[in-house]
């Protein structure tokens, strides 16, 4: 039988981790116990629960993980609500990978990298960060700025504290929106924090988070001398097919599922403001 692009594969949930009150991370493998397919950092997959619906999620695990894939999913709609109720052993369907990845093998190589994430925006970045850690010598200094509403909303905090913070030549800055008992770290919004950190504007930056955070952080970065051509982000719009045919995820003449979701800020500047 020939490969049918819109037909998914069956995946099995092998682990469910509750990261925050509304984010769970699901570990998925194929029915044969192996990884479903290869992907690159920043790419997405269509995950579905038959009878409920199909949604696009970024693959949060690194490609260098050859055993399984992970999806960090925030509960915010009908499909994600059902996904959150799923248990280990449950089968789901997965198809992908879709979209363009971060240029980890091209533009990122040899560069100092700045990752800025807000809330669930860490999900697509986690894949790149772990990829970069795996091939650590290919990249320069790594700075990670991650903010969330509260300390309980920081996704993957264990991995951040136990692994990323101990990585050589890597700085991790965490912040939460409002003061909270038991939090002695930084308090404040990401855009303001980014400006305070005295970052080197020659770094290549990757942004992901709520649109409003991206907007203000970008403005902040430009203010301290970053060049738009070295700032990347990843977009999210409603998607159905994942292969640039169903017609809904376009921004101007670009389809997010096919030409994105990773865009350079200079590319976005050329597109109409409709995302």
């Amino acid at each position, binding site marked *: 039988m020939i490969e049918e692009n*819109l037909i998914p594969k069956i995946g099995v949930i092998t682990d469910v981790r509750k990261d925050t009150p509304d984010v769970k991370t699901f570990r998925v493998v194929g029915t044969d116990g192996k990884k479903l397919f290869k992907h690159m950092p920043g790419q997405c997959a269509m995950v579905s629960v038959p009878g409920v619906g199909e949604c696009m999620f970024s693959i949060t695990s690194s490609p260098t993980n050859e055993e399984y894939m992970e999806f960090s999913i925030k509960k915010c709609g009908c499909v994600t609500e059902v996904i959150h109720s799923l248990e280990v052993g449950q089968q789901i369907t997965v198809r992908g990978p879709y979209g363009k990845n971060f240029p980890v093998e091209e533009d990122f190589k040899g560069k100092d990298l700045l990752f800025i994430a807000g809330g669930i925006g860490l999900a697509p970045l986690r894949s790149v960060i772990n990829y970069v850690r795996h091939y650590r010598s290919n990249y320069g200094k790594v700075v990670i700025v991650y903010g969330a509403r509260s300390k309980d909303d920081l996704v993957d905090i264990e991995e951040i504290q136990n692994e990323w913070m101990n990585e050589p030549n890597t700085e991790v800055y965490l912040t939460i929106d409002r003061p909270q008992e038991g939090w002695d770290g930084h308090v404040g919004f990401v855009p303001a924090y980014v400006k305070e950190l005295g970052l080197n504007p020659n770094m290549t930056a990757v942004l992901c988070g709520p649109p409003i955070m991206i907007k203000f952080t970008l403005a902040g970065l430009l203010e301290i001398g970053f060049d738009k051509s070295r700032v990347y982000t990843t977009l999210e719009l409603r998607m159905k097919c994942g292969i640039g045919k169903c017609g809904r995820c376009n921004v101007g*003449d670009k389809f997010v599922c096919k030409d994105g979701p990773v865009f350079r800020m200079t590319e976005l500047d050329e597109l109409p403001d*409709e995302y």
Partner: protein
Amino acid sequence: MLKIAKERLNELYAKISESMGLFIPIKKGGEVNYHVWGEGKEVSLETLKTVKSPKNMFFPQTENMMKFKTEGKNIEILEAGIRKQGDELKPFVAFGVKACDYKAIEVLDKVFLAEPVDTFYQARRNATTIVTLACSKPEESCFCGVFGIDATNPQGDVSTWLDEKYLYWQANTEKGETLTSLASELFEKGGETEVEAQKTSTKAVLAQLPFANLDLSRFKPENLNELFDDTRWEEMSEACLGCGTCTFVCPTCQCFDIRDFKTNDGVIRYRCWDSCMYSDFTLMAHGNSRTTQMQRFRQRFMHKLVYYPSQNDGLYSCVGCGRCVNKCPQNLNIVKVIKTLGGKKND
């Protein structure tokens, strides 16, 4: 060139139907659309514009993609894809396709056959032999000429021309020849003069159509943002009801939705036409990228006139069939958009 007497067309249809499916404009419930031919059906080749375009032959309004059977925590995928259980699709003939609708298939091909290929569309497309039919009585809502389409000389596997007495028949491809050979005894030779005469007289009519000189010169990729930001979208779209009529009668609109339907013993995943005019088209759990009807209206026409050409070497995804001109409930249409935003000639 071959010809077949009009009275004998039913014999031709019957002959073709013996071994292939035959989709042809048929009047049903008072309206002419493409349906499968059968004895006693009211074929209407004379109808200039079927209500729905022939696109649903390749891209049906609704089609099942797969079925799921769930048991406990397990899922099984059944009947996945168009070749259910490995069957090849039965070959079929699309008969009477007008030049504009034929061009529209080319437009759809560029979407569905681009990598990664849409296998559902591809299978149907490969199984089709297209018999086109030249127009002899274009009407005022037609503007295919603007997109470089010659309504008098359509392409396809077989090109045909119809007059009072005969259907003239010219096979262009191997598939076309094969089709001809199915019913060779029904054809006689000749018709070149009649066809040439018809072409000349139709061309004279085409040149005089009110929309024959629409100016598209401003619809270029480099004007994308300028056109997008034009303030006139607001007034152009204010009467838009947000229905899907224009998109569903359009031969090139290709947006679809994928949905699940629960049956008594499983789930059917199907896809169906969707419309960028609908308010839920881009709705996500956390927001909507196009919240106003103006944005949705703009999306449709920008896609046809700017976004699509930008991705496909300047090919517009409008073929000037004029269906939206005739069918929009509130008389909005692409011509009004082209005239408002297009080049100088429109003033």
